[in-house]
């Protein structure tokens, strides 16, 4: 059962179910170290106007060619803008994967599910492997599937909050009912929360802030890798049932000094 537990996504076989991001690292040089330590095989990047004042490092040079790029459409406020960014990313050689991220609410950074669906419909027809970042809403997830999404990426908590699986009951609905992979994205702050998502049956998790802003991103990448693996193995091993009453683990018979009534 455990011999081939790879995740197939967009024709790529991922043997590691921890997706990572390149945002918020103190230095780009930490990224390849984190990738090596975590074993992550997919990583996000963003597209922005150049900043003439800033140091011009090409972030793509810090990502080994063996790691699949997942450009995001952050900064897009409409489906049209997301589509434009996706096309630019593909033309620029970043491959066919795209994380649709359309945000109009700048206070909580909640994804705009409607614009995201529109962008997914357009880009899936253009042959993109679309990974839409959404609020966990089951009817929307089914619409995304029908639109040709390669996966759905519901949030656990708002971006960068590190609060974990606040949307847990809704995530469970998606995991139980979606035919495409479910990748829990955003809000995961601790390895134990990543493990919990995987125990629930999530197909993968995407973690950026919690790794990039840890005091030691390399070690934290490794911790998340272990947690994701543990959670996945636990899910496949089928968790034992919960019970409100205690159930003894040791036999309740054969105690010392017990009167035998033969």
């Amino acid at each position, binding site marked *: 059962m455990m011999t081939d537990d790879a995740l197939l996504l967009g024709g790529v076989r991922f043997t590691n179910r921890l997706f990572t*991001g*390149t*945002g*918020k*690292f103190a230095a*780009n040089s930490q*990224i390849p170290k984190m990738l090596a330590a975590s074993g992550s095989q997919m990583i*996000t*990047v*963003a*597209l*922005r*106007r*150049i900043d*003439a004042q800033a140091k*011009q*490092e*090409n*972030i*793509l*040079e810090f990502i080994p060619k063996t790691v699949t790029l997942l*450009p*995001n459409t*952050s900064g897009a406020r409409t489906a049209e803008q997301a589509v*434009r960014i996706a*096309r*630019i*990313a593909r*033309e*620029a050689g*970043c491959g066919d994967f795209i994380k649709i991220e359309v945000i109009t609410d700048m206070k909580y950074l909640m994804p705009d599910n409607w614009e995201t669906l529109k962008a997914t419909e357009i880009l899936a027809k253009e042959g993109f492997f679309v990974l839409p970042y959404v609020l966990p809403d089951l009817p929307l997830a089914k619409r995304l599937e029908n639109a040709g999404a390669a996966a759905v990426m519901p949030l656990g908590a708002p*971006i*960068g909050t590190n609060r974990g699986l606040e949307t847990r009951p809704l995530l469970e609905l998606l995991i139980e009912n979606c035919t495409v992979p479910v990748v829990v994205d*955003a809000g995961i702050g601790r390895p134990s929360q990543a493990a919990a998502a995987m125990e629930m049956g999530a197909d993968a998790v*995407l973690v*950026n*802030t919690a790794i*990039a802003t840890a005091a030691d991103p390399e070690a934290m990448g490794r911790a998340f890798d272990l947690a994701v693996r543990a959670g996945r193995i636990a899910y496949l091993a089928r968790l034992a049932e919960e019970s409100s009453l205690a159930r003894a683990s040791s036999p309740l018979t054969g105690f010392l000094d017990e009167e035998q009534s033969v």
Partner: protein
Amino acid sequence: MEIIVNGVTETVSPCTIAELAEGRGLATGALVVELNQQIIKQEQWSQVCLKTGDRLELLSFVGGG
């Protein structure tokens, strides 16, 4: 002539995309160019002359989640 670079109207002498990028000291490896919402590949930068009113976007990939 006037062109719009990353949303800012600028007066520049007639030039190709390659010349403009070189003049600004932009590292070509990291640069992604969109002209009037058309992506221009690096091989074409030296062949595309900028015209008055062009909207040029000079972009690059950055860290993001």
